[in-house]
């Protein structure tokens, strides 16, 4: 299957279903590649092809989620190939398990929402950052549970994603206010809890999310407000940044910017890293985790 066809397939997935997480779309594309691939004769060759495909996908969409989805798929291939050394049988098993995996993770957002909405009490004031579909799902379940709460959303420049979130929340009849990114410190004393999504959850238990999340976390720590993160488990990624500089450049900027611009120092990064010391709890489809439990999960998978 041609690399450009793949990227087209990926883009169509995202276009057709805007609700689908980018990691899931990436994994679906890779599974499609697996089904159509006729050239591979050995498992090593298959892995090579897949690695190249993932790199191509990352060039199309440079978010952390695509990278973590790709790595998870590679890991999945390795684990399955260990059990079935014969290639054709291995491929059959892989395709079966891949479909099953996709079915399971399509349910993960609802699992997360079910866990988290009990933490939202009646009369709560929630602060969230930018636009996250998982947070939207959580707030939707809480509203469906007849809870009354108000939401403050940061505008989240440079793409004003917060305004889209506010529109979606208004459609759900949840009272929402958009605040400036600079007004986070001002509004923090009024809120009861902070809930954000994550583009990636790193090994230390910290998160990579839209720029401005770190600020939010520091402010909430200073005011002693709980800072909750909601993320599905396929977003766990094998990075261990110690500070903002450690986050790889290829995640910080959009794919087009990376290709077009020479000197990245002039560009504004799109994401930042929030260390685990600022996070109270992580809600994932594997349960409610403390940041220290995240590395446990990753170890169980990768080692």
């Amino acid at each position, binding site marked *: 299957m041609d690399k450009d066809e793949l990227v087209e397939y990926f883009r169509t997935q995202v276009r057709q279903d805007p609700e689908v997480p980018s990691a899931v779309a990436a994994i679906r594309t890779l599974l499609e590649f697996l089904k159509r691939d006729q050239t591979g004769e050995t498992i090593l060759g298959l892995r090579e092809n897949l690695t190249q495909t993932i790199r191509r996908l990352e060039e199309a969409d440079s978010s952390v989620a695509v990278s973590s989805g790709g790595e*998870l798929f590679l*890991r*999945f291939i390795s*684990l*399955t190939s260990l059990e079935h050394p014969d290639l054709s049988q291995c491929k059959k098993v892989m395709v079966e*398990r891949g479909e*099953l*995996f996709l*079915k*399971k*993770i399509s349910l993960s957002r609802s699992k997360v929402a079910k866990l988290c909405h*009990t*933490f939202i*009490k009646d009369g709560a004031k929630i602060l969230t950052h930018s636009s996250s579909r998982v947070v939207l799902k959580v707030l939707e379940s809480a509203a469906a549970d007849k809870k009354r709460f108000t939401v403050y959303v940061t505008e989240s420049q440079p793409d004003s994603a917060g305004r889209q979130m506010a529109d979606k929340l208004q459609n759900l009849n949840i009272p929402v206010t958009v605040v400036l990114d600079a007004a986070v410190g001002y509004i923090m004393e009024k809120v*009861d*809890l902070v809930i954000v999504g994550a583009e990636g959850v790193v090994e230390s238990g910290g998160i990579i999310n839209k720029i401005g999340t770190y600020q939010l976390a520091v402010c909430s720590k200073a005011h002693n407000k*709980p800072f909750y993160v909601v993320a599905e*488990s*396929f977003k*766990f990624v094998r990075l261990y940044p110690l500070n903002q500089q450690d986050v790889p450049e290829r995640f910080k900027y959009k794919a087009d910017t990376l290709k077009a611009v020479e000197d990245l120092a002039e560009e504004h990064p799109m994401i930042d890293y929030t260390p685990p010391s600022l996070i*109270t*709890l992580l809600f994932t*489809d*594997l*349960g*409610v*985790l*403390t940041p*220290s*439990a995240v590395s*446990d*999960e*990753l170890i*169980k*998978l990768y080692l």
Partner: protein
Amino acid sequence: MPGADKETDLTERIEAFLADLKRGGSGTGPLRGSGEMARETTYLLRRITAQARWSSAGDLMEIIRNEGRRMTAAQPSETTVGNMVRRVLKIIREEYARSRGSSEETEQQESLHKLLTAGELSEETFREHFVHLKANVIEAINELLTELDGTTDNIAMQALEHIHSNEVIMTVGRSRTVEAFLKDAARKRKFHVIVAECAPFCQGHEMATGLSKVGIETTVIADAAIFAVMSRVNKVIIGTQTVLANGGLRAVNGTHSVALAARHHSTPLIICAPMFKLSPQVFTTCSLSLNDVNSCFPVLKILSKVNVHCPVFDYVPPELITLFISNIGGNAPSYIYRLMSELYHPEDHKL
């Protein structure tokens, strides 16, 4: 008929237990320690396993889950009851898996690894019948009971590692575990204990009497003096009612203030709590929801136009705690989630 007799006997015992639970909460019955509560619950669960009618593990789990729900509803603040029910449920799952011959590790927790490698979306139904399951489960419950019996001693055995000569230890109110802990250290070390009396019931006084009988130099202070005295204290050792899933505590009222004072003076805060106090609940921000409210009679004799709140419990966040000493050793608060995953199955967290 002997069968029917056994059943009525069983239901009678369960009803008696539930009535006891309800009474214990309203303050009129004898105040029981959590250790006794845990033991009574486990005895009752063993009796249910032995006498109730069930053919497969699934039935037994359903029965125990129902009884567990009724017990926790009777006295929500007594979390050890729910914890023991969950332990027994986990025992049943393990014995079932062992009887089936599959390795126990794989079935238990959700994990990324399991997501990737699992075969079909198999729902474990526990429907198979095994002849020896009953005997195995009862044996495992007996092991659990032996463990419960030994908890205070196991914790006390670790005392010498943590308490050194000429130290000043502070404790709050009365905890049987801490009392045994300090008494064990007193056999070989000489140290000084400051007990905060813990109004309005002043259980600290009993604690101080108990400690001084063994020859430990004890001082009783009022709750208001805790911060003032804290600068001279080397360690704070306290007990708790429940350990929460995030490593926080639900302890007697006033503990949070002690914890904050200890943090301010950088004094280590050590919690002596046996494993059966570990509960899968996670704290939620509204503190009133986790609280019983006590009768305020000792606090205020004049009750005309005044609203008096007398909460029983306090929440202490995990950041303020240095170490948990339990019957399986010392652990950091960030490790509590791991211990929890070994004790309970995630599906049992909500009974």
